[in-house]
Structures are given as structure tokens and as C-alpha cells.
């Protein structure tokens, strides 16, 4: 039988004495859009930060595409094709949009055998993408990220993730700071990515919205997974009730 694309097994993570993830086990398949919801501080960001290599779990295993992940580093996750829109980091204020866009994967052009940054490509591509994501003409690819508004920053991060999408796209509250129109755009994109066969993990507080988009909803509470249900098996109201009650354990994921 085919293995899940990402498999998290009995994960524990401590920040010092603080138990941030408690025995979390969850599988994610390719071609799936999974909503990850739960209260503030429930551990959603912490969980996906393990998946994208920022945090190393204290205990437990992560499997990617049938192989056990032994080392945790963002570079390794990116090389595995995991692209992440982080909640609070990801852009360097002191760099231009173009430089941020290609940070860590800068294209180069050889001049006299020396690999110099390919500025034309960096500017051209990033300009194209930020226009697609609704940034207005007063923002150029050479502008430092520092001067961007919250929504403009978010758009740069989303545009970048979509541009480099590969096998997995993780979105941590991607619609924060976005206008209604851009929110719809992002939600459509999430569905498109999934339809192209990617795994999309979508963190949000808007359970009704994500219930419409997702194939499955995982609920976290206090560092634990408290629900994991197909959207066809539970209504948004039922899921909301689970969050409100602060996590009565529910397991309704059909297939084994």
C-alpha cells in the first residue's frame, strides 16, 4: 500500500520545560488539502515548523515520502520540496523584494566564470509574481520589504511559495492582513495546488472557510491533536464545537 507523503508519529516537543507538542501523530497525503485549526497557542505553528525543519522534535518520528527524517533543517525540507509560508518570519526587511523572493535559491549568471546574481531574472520574475498577487504599481521589485504594508508582505510570501511550489505547500494563516479579494485568491490557489497533486496544509482560525476548501480538518488543542476528520464526516459546526469544548478527543478519519 502507498505510504503517506508525510507521516508524524508520536511527536513530542519541549521548549525548555514547556511541553508544546504532546504525542502528536498525523498523516498527510499528496493531493490533499488539510485544514489545521485550534486555539491560539495550541501548537499549530510549532507542528508545521517541525515539518519545515525549523524545530527538531524532542521525541517521535517524522517520515517523508517513505523515509525517516533524521536531520531537521529548513534547507533539507526545502530540498525535499516543502515550501512554507511562515506566520511571522520569512522576509528580511533590509532586502529588496527581488532579493527576498530568491533568498536561498538565487539565480546566477556567469561572467568570466564567476557566478554573479542574475538581477534581471530576479527583478523580472518577482515583479511578475507580485503584480499577479495584487501589488500595485507604486511598489517595485527593487523596493525594500521594510516599506511594505502587512498585506503586501503577505502577498510577497505567498507569491514566492507558489512560484517555487514543489510537493508540499504549508500555509500558516496565509490570509492574515489580506483584503477580501486577495483572500479569495489565496483560497483558490490552495485548491488549485491540491488539484495539481500537491499536499497543502492550511492553518487558519476561520473554520467555516477552511471547511469549504479542505478534504480533512485536524484540530489541535494544548499541544495535542484532538480531532482528525474528513470534512464529509463532520460539519463545520460540529468541528467548532470541538474547539469550543477545548478538545474532547474525536477520531473520525475513515480509512486506516
Amino acid at each position, binding site marked *: 500500500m502507498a505510504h503517506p507523503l508525510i507521516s508524524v508519529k508520536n511527536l513530542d516537543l519541549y521548549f525548555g520545560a514547556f511541553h508544546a507538542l504532546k504525542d502528536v501523530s498525523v498523516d498527510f497525503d499528496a493531493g490533499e488539502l488539510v485544514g489545521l485549526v485550534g486555539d491560539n497557542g495550541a501548537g499549530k505553528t510549532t507542528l508545521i515548523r517541525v515539518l*519545515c525543519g*525549523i524545530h527538531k522534535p524532542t521525541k517521535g518520528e517524522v517520515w517523508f515520502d517513505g523515509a525517516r527524517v533524521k536531520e531537521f*533543517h*529548513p*534547507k533539507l*525540507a*526545502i*530540498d525535499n520540496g516543502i515550501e*512554507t509560508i*511562515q506566520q511571522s*518570519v*520569512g*522576509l*528580511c*526587511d*533590509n*532586502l529588496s523584494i527581488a*532579493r527576498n523572493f*530568491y*533568498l*536561498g*535559491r*538565487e539565480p*546566477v549568471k556567469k561572467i568570466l566564470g*564567476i*557566478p*554573479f*546574481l542574475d*538581477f534581471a531574472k530576479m527583478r523580472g520574475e518577482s515583479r511578475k509574481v507580485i503584480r499577479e498577487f495584487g501589488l500595485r504599481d507604486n511598489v517595485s521589485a527593487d523596493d525594500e520589504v*521594510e*516599506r511594505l504594508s502587512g498585506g503586501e508582505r503577505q502577498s510577497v510570501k505567498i507569491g514566492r511559495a507558489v512560484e517555487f511550489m514543489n510537493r508540499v505547500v504549508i500555509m500558516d494563516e496565509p490570509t492574515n492582513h489580506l483584503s477580501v479579494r486577495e483572500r479569495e485568491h489565496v483560497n483558490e490557489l490552495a485548491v488549485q495546488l491540491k488539484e495539481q497533486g500537491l499536499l497543502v496544509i492550511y492553518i487558519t482560525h476561520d473554520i467555516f472557510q477552511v471547511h469549504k476548501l479542505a478534504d480533512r480538518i485536524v484540530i489541535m488543542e494544548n499541544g495535542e491533536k484532538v480531532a482528525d476528520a474528513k470534512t464529509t464526516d463532520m460539519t463545520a459546526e460540529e468541528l467548532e464545537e470541538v474547539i469550543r469544548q477545548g478538545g474532547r478527543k474525536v477520531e473520525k478519519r475513515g480509512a486506516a
Partner: protein
Amino acid sequence: MKHLVKGQGFGAVIGVVLMLAVFSLIDASGWWTAQTMSNVIHYTAILGILAMGQALVIMTKEIDLSVGSVYGLAGIAFIMLQPALGVAGAILAALMIAAAIGVLQGYAVVRGGLPSMIVTLGGLFTVRGIIYVWTGGSVKAFPEEARNAFVTRLFGGEILGLEAAVFWMLAVAAMLNLVLWATRFGNHVLATGGSAESADSRGVLTGRVKIVTFMLCSVLAGFAGILTLADQPQTHVTIGDLMELEAISAAVIGGCLLSGGRGSLTGAVLGAFIITSFRYELIALGAPSSWFITFVGVVLIVAVIFNQKLARMAGHSV
């Protein structure tokens, strides 16, 4: 023009213009003499190389207090190893010693998660101690034939009537500017200083970036020491004393922000020029040389205030 004003080195450009105007007014005869100019340019080249290395480290949001000692140790290694290795061999060995010190300190900062202020303060003392032990406190000099060797002249002689160090500094400046602004490594340096967390999350190996900049900074300090001693091949134990403070001041006067991610290599050289000019102007005016340190302090504070105002005007949050 817009690029220039937005560039971090702009404050230093204004500083140089102001300074030259003032020096010309108060002391036209002593300042614009060939002797003063030649000294200023020579020492600016040496300090400029140190300052550029320091600027790179500051741009990654770290600091290197050990450069004065490394400058001294590399210079001394160059003189002390020459009998065994020849001039060229001694230069290579001295640079390798400098590189090793940089890597060690960078490694301690990154892997140990220690503040670079403390690690390199330790480096400053440790390396200075090695200088004392190695030279036994005595003065060592090159024999006549090493003094006149081609390689020695290449680094310490004169080309077209200018000290060779000036050309080396210009070459280093051109190269480092290209590396910083137009290569992947440079982008990673700027990103590491801007937000190491964000850079990490994009797969940049920020630890490695820092170790490499510490190494570059050390090698440049060592190179500056070699340039100095190739010109005057004679050791003394205090060589490079306090030079770390001059190098940091030059970088900061040149527009490097200690908050990381912003700075200018050209500005660092201009900062070195300003500091050096004050030293020789005081000499030209016949003031006691002990005033020099006080002046550097005042210029540094004024420059920081001024650069911060400039940065705020450009819309940066500092």
C-alpha cells in the same frame, strides 16, 4: 544619486567633505603637504582593509574585537617565519594563522551560541598573549635580502610613487563590493544580518555565513598586518594595539549599523580616512598625540547620531 543617498555610506561622504573643508581652513599649510598626504593615504589603506572586514562582520550582526591582535600576530608571524619559509611562504603561513583564528572564533560564536563580543574579546587577549610569548617582548627585523625581496616590495614597496598598500586596498575593496552586492554569498550575508531567523527559514545556512565572514575579517586583518610589516619589517609587541577600536569606529562612521544588515564597504574606507586624517592633522597642528583617541571618540559619537538620522530619513527602522 538616489542610490547614493539611500546607500549607507552617504554620511561618510558628507563627513569627508566637511572635514577636508575645515582642515583646509584652519591649517592650509600643514595639511595639504605631500608628507602628510602620503602618510594619511598609506595608513587609510591599512586601516581601510581592517575596517572592511569589520564591516562584513557587523553586517551579519556580530562584531570582531580581535582584529588588532590578529593584525599584530600575522605581521609578527610574517617576520618570524621568514627565515624558515621564505617571504612568500611566511605570508601564506601568516594568512593561514589569521584564517584559523577567524574560523575558531566564528565556530565558537555559532556552535556555542555565544555573543561575539565576548568570544572575540577573549580572542583579543589570547592572541596578544601569543604575540608576547612568541617575540619574547623583543624586536625582530628582516635581514637585508628579505627586505629587498621582490615579494616584500610587492606588498610593502611603492608603485607609481604610491605605497603598494593603496593598490591592495583598492583591489580588496573592488572585490569585496562585488562579493557583497552581486553574489549569492553577499545576499546571504545581508539576509543573515537583516533577520537570521527569516534567512534560516529560507534555507540559508546562516551559521556557515557567519563563520566565513569571521574568517574573511581575520584574513583581512592579517593581510593588513603583512602590508604594514612589509613596509617596515620590524616587530614590536604592541603592534595593532587598539586597532580593533579604530576599525570598528571606521566601519560605524562609514554607515554600518550595529543592528545588522546595513552598511557600506566604501563607507568603511572613508571612515578609515576620516580617523586617519584626524590623527595626522593633530600631528600637523603640533597637538599632543594623546588627543587623538579623544577625537576618534567624539567623531564616532557624532557620526553615529548623524548616520542614524540619515537612516531614519531614508525610512529605515533603526
